[in-house]
């Protein structure tokens, strides 16, 4: 039950953060959602009928299932690498992702003049706006 409530809480937090426009908050939302999914995998191992693998029992049916734990380990590594990549994307772009509105500010001619230098918004972002 505790596990189920925790998963629900994490998912609710993730959904709340997804409704925000800022990329960083969306990333934090994904961190929460990733944890929720990992806990689902963990619960799939039968946490209600199994306990820790050491000291308690020698009966394999009562020991913690190692397979979901291996799944989670794999999933954590993958989610971690994608989170890092998304963090990079969040500082190379602009603050919000209004794809349609932002376009009007962009000018092909102006950009082709400023060869080599980073985009204006990139610099302002880099200074920690």
């Amino acid at each position, binding site marked *: 039950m505790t596990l189920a409530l925790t998963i629900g809480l994490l998912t609710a937090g993730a959904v709340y953060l997804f409704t925000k426009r800022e990329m960083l908050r969306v990333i934090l939302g994904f961190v929460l959602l990733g944890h929720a*999914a990992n806990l689902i995998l963990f619960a799939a191992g*039968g946490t209600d009928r199994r306990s820790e693998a050491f000291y308690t029992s020698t009966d394999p049916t009562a020991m913690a299932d190692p397979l979901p734990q291996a799944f989670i380990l794999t999933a954590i590594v*993958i989610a971690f690498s994608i989170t890092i990549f998304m963090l990079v994307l*969040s500082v190379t*772009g602009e603050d919000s992702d209004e794809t349609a509105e932002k*376009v009007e500010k962009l*000018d092909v001619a102006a950009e082709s003049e400023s060869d080599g230098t980073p985009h204006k918004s990139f610099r302002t972002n880099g200074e920690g706006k």
Partner: protein
Amino acid sequence: MSASTIGILLPLFVGLPLLVAGILICTGHRLRLHAVVTMLTMLTMLAGAMYIVYHFWTTDGGAIGHQVGHWPAGIAIPFVADMFTALMLSVTLLLTVVSIWFAHASQAANSKYFAPLVLVLSTGVNGALLTADLFNLFVFLEVMLLPSYGLYVLSANRKLPVRRTHGARLYVTLNLFTSTLYMAGVGFLYGTAGSVNIGVLAEQAKHDSTVALAGAVTIFALCIKASVVPVHGWLARAYPATSPAVTALFSGLHTKVAIYAIYRIYAVVYDGDTRFLWIGVVLFSLTMLIGVFGAVGEKTTRTILTFHMVSQIGYILLGVALFTELGLTAGIFYLLHHMIVKAALFMATGAVEVRYGTGVIGALGGISRTEPVIAVAFMIAALSLAGIPPFSGFVAKFMLIVGAVEAGEIAAVVVMLFVSLITLLSMLKIWTGMFWEKGSGGPATKSGTIITSQTRDPYAQEVSYTPELATEATRAQVTTLTGTQTIVEADEATVPARRINFALAAPAVTLSLITVAFGLGGQFLLSLSGIAAEGLYDATEYVQAVLQP
């Protein structure tokens, strides 16, 4: 070569490209070496995949399994190939080869990371097709996606960093969300059925509704990846925002692997359960309709083509929603045909976009006169997409319609015919807007011609692609797009020169020729698809191959 030898060699489809990618990373910035080695690796694997197709053709079906690392069955990760797997491997590898060629010809591969990333991408695709373990499928989907994120940003135009970031953000967040959802579905499956091995899960969803529900979560996640209506919106936003070469590469691989997984999971885990088929028929018919209508309002070639992709995915998946032997045969044939034709269209319009600097409908005209080869290649692929004989699209659509009539889905047949008509109109829109002569005298015929670009809109400008090798003339043309009425000063010659060289045109032409071959030799490919469909319709041989010791 015996079946067991092929089985032992199956993991090489994953191991070989991964190893080569690692070696190429160490060699640094040697693009020519990278290109040659990548091509050789891909062609070797392509030959291997085609040999497996030949093997299953001679044995008339069956399946070959291998427990990776020789662990006992049930503990090991099983790699299993049957005719469907082998056909998919062949076509995805063929498309990768052609896309690499196109990327080099269009200067999208000018990075020392391009070749290694494509190799890792191929690793993921091959692994996802071969594995018979649902969690391992998740891992291979990620192996496929991670290099894709890199390719998406890497081969993007350096002068427009912000636009690419927007597309990449959408693409990455969408895929991460979908993967998380898929993983949760796998967790539910493990919790309800106690395994993630497809062989153990076989038919369980038919008898146990909790397993069916858990499986539905994974299928839903795969539907997002395949961009089925109502979760299709990301595709037309994300795909056109990178370089044409990468769009072509992704179009042939990513959504198609998800479709393959849907086919496989529904055929084996659900055993083609007839209770849920109506959901598929409704959703996939809607996908056809909404995809094709989405394309109507779009103003650049690549956004139109990606919306058509959504529409075509409806056709492909209808095969599994019918779940008759004929329906599955038609669906598999459609899938193979579609991968080739879609890539041909992306490469034909991509070649124009790369050399002329824009893919906006109406900004160019008369390209069919200066570039007859690429125009013919586009026309063949477009007619094939719409389903006109003698191209492969006709065979695919005809078979699917016969299959749907046989299954009694008359409404779906009406939708299919109606959507074909709209598809043809949409292809004509690209043809007239880009290739056909525009009014009296195209933009490139006389110096000082006035271009009135009334079709401009901000979004269309967003996706216009300015290659770094654009000549001054091209750049002048692009500049005209920012104003409402500008005079082109560049072209001094009265007869415009050809800009698309042989290397850039070759990929589109090759794929167009393949669609003609698929159309004329449809009988042969249909018999192969038929063998693949039998393997899905009666999955016992596949399951045996998964569970063999």
